[in-house]
């Protein structure tokens, strides 16, 4: 008989499937590379080098993994409740905005405290954004699919307005960004290889794992995701759980924004996120909605992103081809997880239909 939790056999199968996906993607990607006249062997060697070849490469890869994995964890928690959080972008921008405001305005404080406050502010900002979507869902029954996307636009344009006016860097020659954060507020890199954000990542994944697997709230979340009727009958506060889940997703999205701001970007602009919020959705899907899976998927995508973009100039890969290559990898990874993707999309369709009524 089948057990409820993923058994060892399933894990092995998943690893085999993932490996097959990576090989398949490389083969398809090779077609694009060849059509650009790129030296294949050299290109793949370079991609490997640039993702894991040196401590510097590993650091960059981890930095790329941080925002998508944090957002992905938030998306994953929501997935398990059958809720679609597409608001990662907005949560990232609001988180980064809150963090940059705190860090720039309290720059007199000592570094560690400043970092702590910056990260906390990021979570508050993102949590606010997730909480709005959660409130609209639990109070008014509005589909989170729609509200989270709309909130993305609102957050983006708030930031865009601010970085072109009130908080624009006066010495920035008119670029739409804020002043750089003080050096003492930057997240440290441990041993020149492990960025502090990567530690945040593991901690966040662990917290999400405990939440989902070892608390009654986690059971509520999963029960909600498996269908409302049983949970409602058993006495779960269905609406409250829906709100909590989006709030948690927002906290993690906000943390993603703050961690990227303090860890790498150094300043907030209106081109701050290259779509991390949506890559985070992919990350959670590839991770099958589990904490560990999302962590692994986030690291994989982070290493691929960093490797491919790092190899671009040396191997002569055009930007468009590099993007295609990354897309092919993500697509193949999603394909091997199709069962879970289809199930979530179907649920999303139901939740849209409910919203229409």
């Amino acid at each position: 008989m089948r057990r409820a939790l993923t058994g060892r056999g399933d894990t092995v199968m998943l690893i085999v499937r993932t490996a097959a996906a990576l090989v398949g993607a490389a083969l398809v990607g090779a077609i694009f590379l060849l059509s650009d006249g790129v030296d294949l062997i050299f290109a793949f060697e370079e991609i490997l080098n640039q993702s894991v070849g040196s401590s510097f490469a590993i650091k960059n890869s981890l930095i790329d993994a941080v925002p998508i994995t944090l957002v992905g964890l938030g998306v994953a928690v929501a997935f398990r409740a059958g809720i679609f959080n597409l608001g990662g972008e907005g949560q990232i921008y609001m988180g980064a905005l809150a963090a940059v405001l705190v860090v720039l305005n309290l720059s007199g404080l000592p570094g560690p405290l400043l970092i702590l406050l910056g990260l906390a502010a990021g979570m508050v900002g993102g949590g606010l954004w997730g909480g709005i979507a959660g409130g609209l869902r639990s109070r008014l029954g509005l589909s989170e699919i729609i509200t989270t996307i709309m909130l993305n636009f609102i957050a983006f344009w708030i930031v865009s307005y601010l970085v072109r006016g009130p908080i624009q860097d006066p010495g920035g020659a008119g670029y739409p960004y804020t002043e750089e954060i003080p050096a003492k507020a930057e997240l440290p890199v441990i041993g020149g290889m492990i960025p502090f954000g990567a530690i945040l990542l593991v901690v966040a994944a662990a917290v999400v794992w405990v939440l989902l697997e070892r608390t009654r709230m986690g059971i509520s979340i999963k029960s909600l995701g498996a269908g409302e009727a049983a949970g409602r009958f058993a006495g779960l506060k269905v609406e409250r759980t829906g709100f909590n889940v989006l709030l948690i997703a927002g906290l993690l999205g906000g943390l993603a924004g703050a961690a990227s701001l303090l860890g790498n970007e150094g300043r907030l602009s209106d081109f701050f996120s290259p779509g991390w919020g949506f890559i985070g959705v992919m990350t959670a899907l590839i991770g099958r909605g589990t904490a560990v899976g999302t962590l692994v998927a986030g690291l994989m995508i982070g290493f691929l992103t960093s490797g491919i973009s790092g190899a671009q100039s040396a191997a002569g890969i055009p930007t468009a081809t590099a993007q295609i290559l990354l897309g092919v990898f993500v697509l193949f990874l999603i394909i091997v997880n199709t069962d879970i993707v289809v199930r979530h999309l179907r649920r999303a369709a139901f939740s849209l239909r409910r919203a229409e009524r």
Partner: protein
Amino acid sequence: MPALVRMNGIVKKFGDFTATNNVDFEVEGGEVHALLGENGAGKTTLMNILYGLCIPDRGRIEVDGREVELNGPADAIEAGVGMVHQHPLLVDRLSVVENLFLGGVGNGTERGMREAIAEVEARFPLDVEPGALVEDLPMSKRQRIEIVRCLARGVRVLVLDEPTAVLTVDEVGDLFGEMRLLVESGHSVIFISHKLSEVSRISDRVSVLRGGRMVGTWRTGETNPGALAEAMVGEPVDPARRAGGPRAGRARLALRGCSVVDEDGQDVLQGVDLDVHEGEIVGIAGVEGNGQRPLAALTPGVQPPTRGEILLDGDRLPPVGEWRRRDVKLGRIPEDRRKEGLTLDAALWENLLTGPQCPDTGRVFSKKKMVERARVLLEEFGVSPPDPLLEAGQLSGGNQQKVIFARELWSDPGVVVAVNPTRGLDLRAQREIHERFLALRGQGVAVLVISTDLDEVTALSDRIGVLYAGRLDGPHPADEIDRKEIGLLMAGLSRQTEFDTEGGGLL
């Protein structure tokens, strides 16, 4: 008159369960033929076989004197048999015309369809704006669209599956007019119902099914509701199972004037008063759709009553979402164990921890401990296999039900409410669950069993109430009411209805 439909020796088994057992059934041309029976008597199975939705294990079907093999609704329609479902199978977001088009009316062109509809309308009024969206139409009009759809496809025998259950009184009158019109134009109508008064009013002949067997067929004018009620409910299978009488204890669960108005503004429950005392089992009988659902939702605190109140040991019963672990005094066995009772994708131990019944687990629990606790509980309740890591969906129905009992009785509630607790279970599981109820009664628990299975109600109950059209009759002490009387109440007649042997005199 030659039979238009003749079904001979129809046998259909689902696993060990025999849904229809060697059933013979005949419909003449130009008659309304009522098909009566309790839930699970085999009416729906027999009609699904006639409509090709279900393939019989044995038996012979003739339509118009020719033997037919029905492997799907398309074959049935081809043979001249159509079905109108209680909740018409239409696409709500499309218009009437679009639905008819989808239903295969006409030759596939719009013009062909309009001609086909016009042809039908000459005999049978559609009386619906063709461009109207189905979702804006009342149920009666939707049923009419289905009738037209059948007629336009040349159907001669129409099966109406409990059409009146979803209609208002006026709409029922309209439907009966339509049925007469159909019969006059040479069609036959098979009318499935539980309601004796309607059967007497509209049908020419009536057949009664009980427990998968055909009890008999009569001319409606030559029988009477009392005889039909008796034919429907039959004799108790095992009258000696119930032990002892009610014990006089204090009332633990009390409903005071509870009424429920549903989303459509219908009164689905009207002024229900009910006490359940400690150490007794109160059974609520009734045909499905007469208020069981709203009553069942009320008692576990899922849906508050529109009017009236529910008291648990004298205190108002709060909505289940507000229950605290320490004050769960009510165990609930829901009707649909697969949807409401359990999360099928989740493991048993997780299912046991869903809801407020379980003991304190602490903020972050150890899975090992929880699984161990679950194993002990599953063993205690005889779940087989007692493996907490199995998914709930992998257990048999009887074992799923035991898991629900385990969870709901975990907090030792003083009151237990169950809805159709043994539906779809095999005999052994049924017996085990009945014994569980009797044991609870022995422990002084107040038990309320709402069931459409009359055998279950009579076997278990110390007092029996009957729901009909949202009203509760009784409960009466079990030894003061017999099955025939319950049958009459279930069919909406008074207990004292005299059996008029001349027949038909009732109405």
